């Protein structure tokens, strides 16, 4: 009996469209993540799309969202019989409650589990697709698929199925069950977000019912190799997690038994329907209403149909589920959006819109597809088509309202999301709601673009022979849009609507939507004309009455287009042609049209043509004169310039290679005493031959004129560096470079492989490569240069360039400022121009200033204070500051979320620092940290710069980190640095796993951020701890003395390490530590095994600690070998847990540095107070994969 019920239910569910739709959607989601490089779940550059790790992440994520599907299956089981009225018949049979209930559950669950097989199937199929880079595909191991499905997916599916089955039996309502689903999902996201901190990791490994926590705990520090080959082992927390939650599922199932009443649910006793007998109907007399068929009637019909269509959307439970899901997803995103390191940010409207665009817009897209089908097919689904279609209503009254209704639903949806954003802003005590930005940056463009998409969905449904086919076609459309872009089909003239949610403009409070915003409206206008034409065609082919075949409708098409319909069609085609022509003029004639693929191919050809010139000796630039005229509205930058170049080699130079950025226009270029002999127009590469070769030491002049501009707008990749307000140019984008180097080349492994570039990776010169010492990290063609830069811009903007301002004149609507250097600086310039608010403060003879957007005033004072603290530390400990000004300048978010240090000039993105909310003193003060870091670069880059070889960034980024950490430590104390270092440690260990090429030790770092920043912080802090701050700073002072402001040969990382070794003296432990920190990849495993404290007779405490320690060296791929450990480690006793909110130095009872060896060590102490926490390396200065086990609660 049971088996028969299971079988029946299973077959029933398989016939249900939900099964196929769900399987289809999840197949496509997975297929997309496997085959489209923009959609990635779990995989990354080196992690295979079918690696066990990527499959695990995909399974977890999709199993979570599968909740909606499994609920549809299992809740349907309970609710179905009552809805169809079949319940009494079934229950009148001899079937037992248990068999009925669980038989059906099992059948439905099996169907759900079968549908989820679409996920592994899609991974498999996706890994066969020819366009997927073979480097991204690992070997096919069936066991991985099975294991992932059985261990990670099935228990989660079982849990959600059982849980919502129980809920459905208790409520007997689909709606209530779905509300429950949303509630659970919201709760889940909120709890997950709240516990996304290292300290909750173990707890969540058990507590997270979907298994994310357990998998994350096990794999967070996995290297690429592990991610590609290892399955998440079913031991420890993961095993217990799966068992625990499966048991919970079983318990929920048994609850369902109790909650289910087999008897027919008696309908509530309602008031007796007296209707039939009601005699009190009024008497209606008077003339019959006469129908009319004029404009007024048509308007009334249009509105009535629109209302009906909207009501169908608004009254359907699915709509509310979608809306709630979208709002909570976006709400959580907005609520928890932060600036990294747990820092709060001010919820500026721009930021809110950014989150909404990412987290909310999927909902209207689903609404468009789903409800287009529902609305177009409603009359047929409800069998009202004969009545409705026989009414004297013109067909356009059926077509237009569908589109109108969906458009209005979009406005409502987006409006609700705006409301959610405003509520988040209000809850965060942020009062500047900027409704105008919500409207013009979000609501207006998106509702139009989404409506265009909805028109397509309606048209597809009008032509398709079945609703499901229409839905399927639309899903294919979305996939095609995503995939075609990757294949080089990018033009918005043929990408419908310019993308599913239309062309998306990047935002900035300084510059609004910029040119892309304007371009977006041209594209929207163009596609609106096409959408109108499509609507006319949908009208002409509208299904009316019983004829659903397309062919007969096509036959009557010409007759239906005669008259106004044809005229509108013709008009819209003409409008589309006109708008399209204008767009083409902008995107393809006024500006070069190029796709991402074109650019890649160009870069590959460039490398093939010119990389062989890399070692050709070239002169170096010694003096730079630039005159940059900025036209922010155009946008355009016209530059005339002169370089003085000098042959610094020992041999004559016969040829000069002059290069420019790809799309830069070069109206004139001349080199003193040289003629152009080869010009590669396509590559902007010119070779000059000197009439008489440049003798060693000889100087000559190079004069040039360039124009960096964009006329009108482009398809994508609008010029973002010159904008109406917030121009930020780096000099290499508009000035010549001499000789070939490796900038502008393809670095992505897969792309290099695709274009047959050798070697597979472009690596930096080795540490041992003496030839590389001739060139600085910044530029190959310059050492230190004198600069004379004139910048002119609109009269209402402030022009900025490195150097001291010697004049500033406003005349004829233009403001011109002239900057010169007093001493040579790096050839690394920024040109900026915007309408800034400016704050100045003089400090010890230095002019500190912040140029900022007036709407972002919050942290300006803090930045100035940070500059003071930083100057104090750096000047006192390293060398005097070489300039008498420091300028921080805000730039638009779409140019990047970073700060950068040029000589006495620090461009600082509006996305970081300026909007940090540092009112909570317990949070890490990232404003001060970033500012101090960039200020540190004035020493570590602008006084001393490394040779362009391995280890170079240790000399600027790592040392700037050191400056920042020391500034922070002086300001906030050592105890609070722990929190910061813990983020650094976690980030370093996680990023190792994403390494694309090879992890290097710090002394050989190849511009790898996670090494020179993250590991750099940890290394420098530990070094300072062990050999002492004074010793470190002495070494740095010596380093500056030896190398500051000197040209080639440039120093290497090992030069500084040698100085550290000198300061460390003969102590072999310290020498070994320097080896481990700088020259090896060292990973510790430190644990406190036992911590016991006993009160003594004298009122003090005996504390016994058992600690265990291990040290490993790792190679570049993460393979570890154990090494003998013998080094000093901090041991501490505390009255509060270090790193916790209220932990202060008063909570430190005892802190000693004791030698610790490999293996277990037992230590005893006598403490004055009772410790509650104790352990080793409490401040996380050592690189330890399990830093949470360092400290333990003290037992009695």
């Amino acid at each position, binding site marked *: 009996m049971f088996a028969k019920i299971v079988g029946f239910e299973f077959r029933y569910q398989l016939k249900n469209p939900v099964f196929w739709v769900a399987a289809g959607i999840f197949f496509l989601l997975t297929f997309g993540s496997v085959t489209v490089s923009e959609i990635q779940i779990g995989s990354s550059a080196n992690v295979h799309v079918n690696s066990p790790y990527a499959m695990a992440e995909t399974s977890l994520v999709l199993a979570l969202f599968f909740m909606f599907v499994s609920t549809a299956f299992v809740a349907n089981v309970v609710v179905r019989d009552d809805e169809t009225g079949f319940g009494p018949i079934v229950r009148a049979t001899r079937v037992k409650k248990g068999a009925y209930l669980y038989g059906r559950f099992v059948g439905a669950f099996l169907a759900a589990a079968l549908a989820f097989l679409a996920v592994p199937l899609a991974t498999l199929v996706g890994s066969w697709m020819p366009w997927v880079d073979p480097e991204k595909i690992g070997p096919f191991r069936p066991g991985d698929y099975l294991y992932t499905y059985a261990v990670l997916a099935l228990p989660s599916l079982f849990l959600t199925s059982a849980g919502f089955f129980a809920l459905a039996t208790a409520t007997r309502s689909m709606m209530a069950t779905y509300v429950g689903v949303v509630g659970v999902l919201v709760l889940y996201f909120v709890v997950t977000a709240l516990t996304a901190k290292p300290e909750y990791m173990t707890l969540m490994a058990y507590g997270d019912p979907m298994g994310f926590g357990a998998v994350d705990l096990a794999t967070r520090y996995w290297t690429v190799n592990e991610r590609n080959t290892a399955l998440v082992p079913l031991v420890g927390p993961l095993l217990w997690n799966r068992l625990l939650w499966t048991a919970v599922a079983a318990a929920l199932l048994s609850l369902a038994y109790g909650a289910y009443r087999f008897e027919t649910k008696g309908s509530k006793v309602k008031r007796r329907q007296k209707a039939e007998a009601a005699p009190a109907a009024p*008497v*209606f007399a008077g003339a*019959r209403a006469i*129908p*009319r068929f004029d404009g007024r009637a048509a308007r009334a019909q249009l509105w009535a149909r629109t209302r009906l269509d909207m009501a169908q959307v608004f009254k359907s439970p699915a709509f509310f589920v979608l809306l709630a899901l979208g709002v909570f997803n976006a709400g959580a995103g907005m609520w928890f959006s932060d600036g990294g390191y747990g820092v709060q940010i001010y919820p500026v409207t721009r930021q809110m819109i950014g989150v909404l665009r990412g987290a909310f817009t999927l909902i209207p897209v689903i609404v468009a597809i789903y409800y287009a089908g529902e609305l177009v097919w409603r009359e047929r689904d409800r069998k*009202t088509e004969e009545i409705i279609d*026989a009414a*004297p*209503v013109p067909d356009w009254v059926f077509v237009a309202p569908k589109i109108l209704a969906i458009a209005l639903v979009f406005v409502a949806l987006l409006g609700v999301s705006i409301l959610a954003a405003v509520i988040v802003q209000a809850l965060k005590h942020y009062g500047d709601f900027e409704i105008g930005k919500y409207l013009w940056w979000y609501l207006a463009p998106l509702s139009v673009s989404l409506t265009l998409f909805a028109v397509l969905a309606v048209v597809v449904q009008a032509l398709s022979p079945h609703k499901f086919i229409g839905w399927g076609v639309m899903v294919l459309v979305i996939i095609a849009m995503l995939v075609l872009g990757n294949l080089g089909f990018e033009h918005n003239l043929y990408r419908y609507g310019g993308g599913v949610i239309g062309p998306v403009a990047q935002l900035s409070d300084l510059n609004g939507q910029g040119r892309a915003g304007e371009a977006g409206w041209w594209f929207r206008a163009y596609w609106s004309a096409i959408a109108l034409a499509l609507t006319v065609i949908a009208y002409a082919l509208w299904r009316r*009455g019983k004829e659903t075949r397309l062919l007969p409708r096509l036959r009557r098409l010409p007759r239906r287009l005669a008259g106004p319909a044809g005229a509108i069609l013709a008009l819209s085609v003409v409008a589309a042609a006109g708008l399209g022509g204008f767009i083409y003029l902008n995107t393809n004639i006024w500006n070069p049209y190029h796709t991402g693929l074109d650019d890649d191919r160009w870069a590959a050809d460039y490398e093939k043509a010119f990389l062989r010139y890399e070692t050709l000796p070239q002169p170096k630039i010694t003096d730079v004169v630039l005159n940059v005229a900025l036209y922010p509205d155009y946008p355009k930058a016209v530059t005339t310039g002169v370089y003085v170049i000098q042959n610094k080699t020992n041999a004559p130079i016969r040829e000069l290679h002059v290069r420019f950025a790809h799309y830069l226009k070069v109206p004139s270029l001349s080199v003193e005493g040289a003629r152009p002999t080869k010009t590669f127009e396509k590559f902007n590469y010119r070779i000059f031959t000197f009439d008489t070769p440049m003798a060693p030491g000889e100087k000559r002049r190079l004069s040039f004129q360039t124009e960096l501009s964009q006329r009108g707008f482009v398809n994508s990749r609008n010029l973002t560096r010159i904008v109406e307000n917030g121009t930020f140019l780096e000099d290499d984008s508009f000035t010549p470079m001499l000789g070939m180097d490796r900038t502008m080349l393809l670095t992505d492994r897969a792309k290099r492989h695709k274009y047959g570039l050798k070697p597979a990776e472009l690596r930096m010169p080795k540490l041992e490569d003496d030839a590389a010492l001739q060139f600085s990290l910044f530029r190959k063609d310059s050492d230190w240069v004198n600069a004379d830069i004139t910048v002119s811009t609109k009269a209402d903007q402030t022009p900025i360039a490195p150097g001291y301002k010697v004049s500033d004149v406003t005349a004829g609507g233009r403001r011109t400022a002239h900057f010169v250097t007093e001493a040579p600086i790096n050839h690394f310039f920024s040109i900026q121009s915007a309408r800034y608010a400016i704050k100045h403060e003089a400090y010890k003879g230095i002019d500190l200033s912040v140029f900022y957007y007036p709407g972002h005033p919050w942290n300006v004072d803090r930045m100035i204070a940070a500059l003071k603290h930083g100057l104090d530390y750096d000047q006192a400990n390293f060398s005097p500051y070489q300039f008498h000004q420091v300028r921080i300048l805000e730039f638009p978010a779409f140019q990047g979320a970073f700060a950068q240090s040029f000589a006495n000039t620090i461009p600082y993105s509006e996305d970081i620092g300026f909007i940090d909310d540092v009112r909570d003193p317990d949070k890490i003060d990232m404003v001060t940290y970033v500012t101090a870091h960039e200020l540190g670069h004035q020493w570590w880059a602008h006084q001393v710069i490394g040779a362009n070889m391995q280890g170079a960034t240790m000399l600027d980024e790592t040392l700037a980190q050191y400056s920042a950490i020391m500034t922070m430590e002086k300001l906030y104390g050592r105890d609070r640095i722990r929190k910061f270092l813990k983020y650094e440690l976690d980030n370093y260990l996680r990023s190792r796993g994403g390494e694309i090429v090879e992890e290097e030790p710090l002394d050989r770092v190849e511009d790898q951020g996670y090494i020179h920043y993250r590991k750099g912080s940890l290394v420098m802090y530990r070094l300072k701890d062990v050999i002492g701050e004074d010793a470190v700073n002495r070494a740095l002072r010596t380093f500056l003395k030896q190398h500051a402001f000197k040209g080639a040969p440039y120093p290497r990382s090992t030069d500084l390490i040698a100085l550290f070794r000198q300061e460390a003296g003969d102590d072999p432990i310290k020498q070994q530590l320097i080896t481990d920190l700088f020259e090896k990849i060292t990973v510790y495993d430190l644990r406190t095994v036992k911590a016991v404290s006993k009160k003594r007779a004298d009122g003090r405490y005996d504390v016994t600690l058992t600690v265990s320690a291990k040290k490993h060296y790792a190679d570049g791929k993460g393979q570890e070998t154990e090494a003998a450990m013998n080094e000093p480690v901090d041991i501490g006793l505390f009255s509060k847990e270090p790193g916790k909110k209220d932990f202060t130095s008063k909570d430190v009872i005892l802190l000693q540095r004791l030698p610790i060896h490999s293996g277990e060590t037992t230590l005893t102490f006598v403490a004055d107070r009772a410790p509650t926490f104790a352990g080793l390396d409490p401040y996380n200065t050592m690189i330890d994969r399990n830093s949470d086990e360092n400290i333990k609660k003290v037992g009695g």
Partner: protein
Amino acid sequence: MLQIDELTHVYGNGVKALDNVTLSIPTGMFGLLGPNGAGKSSLMRCIATLQTPSRGQIRFDDIDVIQEPERLRRVLGYLPQDFGVYPRVSAYDMLDHMAILKGIAEPKARKAEVERLLEQTNLYGVRKKALAGFSGGMRQRFGIAQALLGDPRLIIVDEPTAGLDPEERNRFLNLLAEIGENVVVILSTHIVEDVTDLCPAMAILAGGKIVKTGAPMDLVKQLSGRIWTKTVEKADLEALRAQHQVISTRLFAGRTVAHVLADENPGDGFEPFAGGLEDVYFSTLHASRKAA
């Protein structure tokens, strides 16, 4: 006056639903009688502009129905054989919606018209109830209410009484009779009594063809003296069919009462029977089946 000429309709799957139908339908109630599958609904849908016939002409007064469906819809009231309703919509709201679609734009007049029709169809008391919860009779009455909206000159009701209990059916037919005086009303049905009770003119449709037209009384008269009846055991029925033109049989108290068509008394225990429209119908069907 509705004039149908040589109307033929073939469905996509090759089924010939209408075969060269020619028919004139005058003002007043017109009964279209035929068994299930005879093509009644196809004919109704062709007239109601919901289906374009493969061949043939339909004219209503000066309207060419096939070329100008928009014009016909303005004077049409149509109650399909089977229709659904929107979920969660009340009778009033749905009728109001239909009134708008029928071109009654002015809100006040529309309200009066909707209420009047609800009252006329005895649905006023339940106007705020969801249609989905209506009984079959209530739903049919709602169907006729919406068909009457906008003062139609051509009313088509397709199988309106199927599934109604006798009381509901009476009420429904009374309603039809009231309105069927000045306009063309086509009542398509397989229930002979509906036509007997209401229609001064009728046609019988079988296998997509019109096999008989006329006034019911005339048709009955043509049969007079040619119908014979006999009560036999069930087992003897086959033998009877072999010998005579058995046009109908029905059970009565466990035995079978057979009607036979014959110009002369067939003897053998047959008795003359004063036939009704039902016998016209059955004899016509019998003849058309034999011809097929």
